């Protein structure tokens, strides 16, 4: 910007405004910029959190506003922690979380490693692979329900091809043994591309000269993989695990669409249980306590994980 332009802009600023701005310190200007954000953060994050903590000690029900609200101390927390069904829902969440992360990391990294090789149609394959994650979870849930249908579902027919079993002899969504795996398969199908993309970014960030130096040192391909590729991609991979872990801990839509938490309560994740308590049974106090327990769990695990991630990055 030329000197003249600056002068022109300065002279165009109304005197009143110029005088006001002139009187503000850097700190005040900083507050003006940061203030609205802090206000919004307090209003839509911190205040609801404090309010939820407050409600968690009461018997409040949001659908019974004319009922007397009583403070009941830690009773909600005692009930939740002593409720076998809550622990079962946590178990269902842990099963889902562990196996989806395991498969997504394994397949995602493998796909990224393959895609990173230069070959014809590379871009086309990348586009095809990332398609599932562009779909809405509701749509994915719906069409996988059809794929899993015992009488007409494609999935059962493909399984029949490999196992020889009658397609209608097993029900992926209706069997207690298979339903937890059915939701793992769908989530893995949908979100592995996300892990793949992050891993791909990691792989492409490794400079070629490191491999060239390793070649000169006569390091084998396997050694290069474990001493260069894996350590350098690890921070990216850990970031992908963090994102997917948080997402899957609060998984709701896909599972509701597929199984509704059933059969029985075998796929009723903590988030589904919480939604039922909060917005179907309207046990607001109880569900607030449940939400706080989940929040502390995720926050605690994420903090430990982020520390580990930072250590990996520092290496």
């Amino acid at each position: 910007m030329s000197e003249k332009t600056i002068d022109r802009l300065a002279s165009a600023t109304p005197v009143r405004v110029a005088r006001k701005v002139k009187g503000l310190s850097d700190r005040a200007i900083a507050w003006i910029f940061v203030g609205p954000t802090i206000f919004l953060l307090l209003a839509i994050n911190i205040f609801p959190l404090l309010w939820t903590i407050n409600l968690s000690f009461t018997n409040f029900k949001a659908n019974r506003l004319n009922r007397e609200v009583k403070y009941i101390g830690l009773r909600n927390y005692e009930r939740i922690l002593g409720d076998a069904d809550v622990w079962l829902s946590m178990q269902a969440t842990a099963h889902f979380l562990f196996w989806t992360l395991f498969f997504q990391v394994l397949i995602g990294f493998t796909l990224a490693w393959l895609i990173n090789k230069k070959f014809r149609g590379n871009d086309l394959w990348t586009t095809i692979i990332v398609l599932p994650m562009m779909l809405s979870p509701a749509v994915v849930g719906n069409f996988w329900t059809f794929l899993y249908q015992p009488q007409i579902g494609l999935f059962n027919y493909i399984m029949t091809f490999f196992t020889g079993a009658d397609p209608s002899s097993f029900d992926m969504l209706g069997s207690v043994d298979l339903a937890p795996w059915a939701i793992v398969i769908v989530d893995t199908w949908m979100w592995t591309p996300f892990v793949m993309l992050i891993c791909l970014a990691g792989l492409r960030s490794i400079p070629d000269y490191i491999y060239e130096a390793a070649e000169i040192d006569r390091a084998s391909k396997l050694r290069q993989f474990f001493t260069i590729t894996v350590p350098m991609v690890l921070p990216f991979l850990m970031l992908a695990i963090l994102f997917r872990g948080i997402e899957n801990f609060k998984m709701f839509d896909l599972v509701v669409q597929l199984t509704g938490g059933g059969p029985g309560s075998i796929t009723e994740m903590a988030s589904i249980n919480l939604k039922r308590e909060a917005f179907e049974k309207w046990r607001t106090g109880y569900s607030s306590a449940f939400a706080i327990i989940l929040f502390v769990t995720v926050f605690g695990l994420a903090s430990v994980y982020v520390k580990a991630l930072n250590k990996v990055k520092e290496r």
Partner: protein
Amino acid sequence: MKHLKIASVGALSLAAATLSTGSQAEDLTLCWAAWDPANALVELSKDFEAESGHSMNFEFVPWPNFADRMLNELNSGGKLCDLLIGDSQWIGGGAENGHYVKLNDFFDKEGISMDDFAPATVYAYSTWPKGSPNYYALPAMGDANGWFYRKDWFGRDDIKAAYKEATGEELGEPKSQKELLKIAQFFQGREIDGNTVYGAAIFTERGSEGITMGATSALYPWGFKYENTPGKYDMEGAVNSPEAVEALEFYKELYKTATPPGYTNSYMGESLDAFKSGQVAMAMNWFAFFPGLYADPDTGGDKIDFFVNPPQNQAGSTLGGQGISVVSYSENKDASLEYIKWFSDPEVQAKWWSMGGYSAHNSVLNDASFKDSAPFAGDFLTAMEAVQDFWQEPAYAELLLAMQKRVHDYVVADKGTAKEALDLLIEDWTEVFEDEGKL
């Protein structure tokens, strides 16, 4: 003088406008579930629009989301619905939480008598506390869970002979729950016209109310009771009685041995689909769907017939149906009450039945021609004589979700025994009633 004239004209205009406000045309919104009878009500309401000058809008929500959507609307004091045809179980919450307008004064003023409606429907859809003369709804749609079957298959000589050979009995409409199971098992996996068919489509849905409505269709005929003494919430020995245990075991056997594969989360829509696609010999569903089923070009007409939920130790059908209420947050209460008055008229009720809605008005039900007016009309009357409903307490949603969980856990997910499921259900319900201060 000129100013005085202008002022007088202005004052008169204002007065005229104020006086006409009472009969001003309003935009009314009626909320209900999205299903066949709702479409009939849209047609019927055109008469109301023509007579009153008010215009009607409709908000219909699919059944699986109906309770969630509407109860959220009521709990948040929403003004979306002026009139609500809400489920019978909502009446306690609607009354105690102030969502519904109490209609006693209005009924007295307009000469609407609850004696003109079938007692079972008044009890179930209108009163709170139960059975007291406090009315929060007008019975709008009588309903119960019933059965329909492939009359053409039941009438075939080869199938009849095969049934006779297999069971030693004649194939016909089941006269008991156990006979129903026997027939369903007979059809399970049978080849008919080159297709594999199955016994029965029943309710197993987990998310809303499905499996509870299905299982109670077995529990009530076995003599299931919610309490030993009505109003005392003493459930031990009633909810988990030997009869209740046997009924629940029966429902599980029906599910395990006589339903199509993958039938683990099925409700009204799935039952209709299974029947219309020729998959099942019998299906349970609400009477509300029967006019549509009878009219179906592929599986209706001569191919279908209907029967009441069979008795076992006693007659018993699960109550469906709804009353129509005025939402207390509505800004058009007067026009909404006008609608209720119009709807209660015997002529409108007769037309309502003729269009596919189940009137609960005595003038319709007691009419000599009613039983022959549709192939399922007689069954409907029989069913309504022995209907039983779920808890209608303000905490009904908690009570319902607990039963959904316990019954689905046992019937579909093979968790524990029937006795254990019912014992756990008592624990859940006791906790709810303790929270409510009723125990």
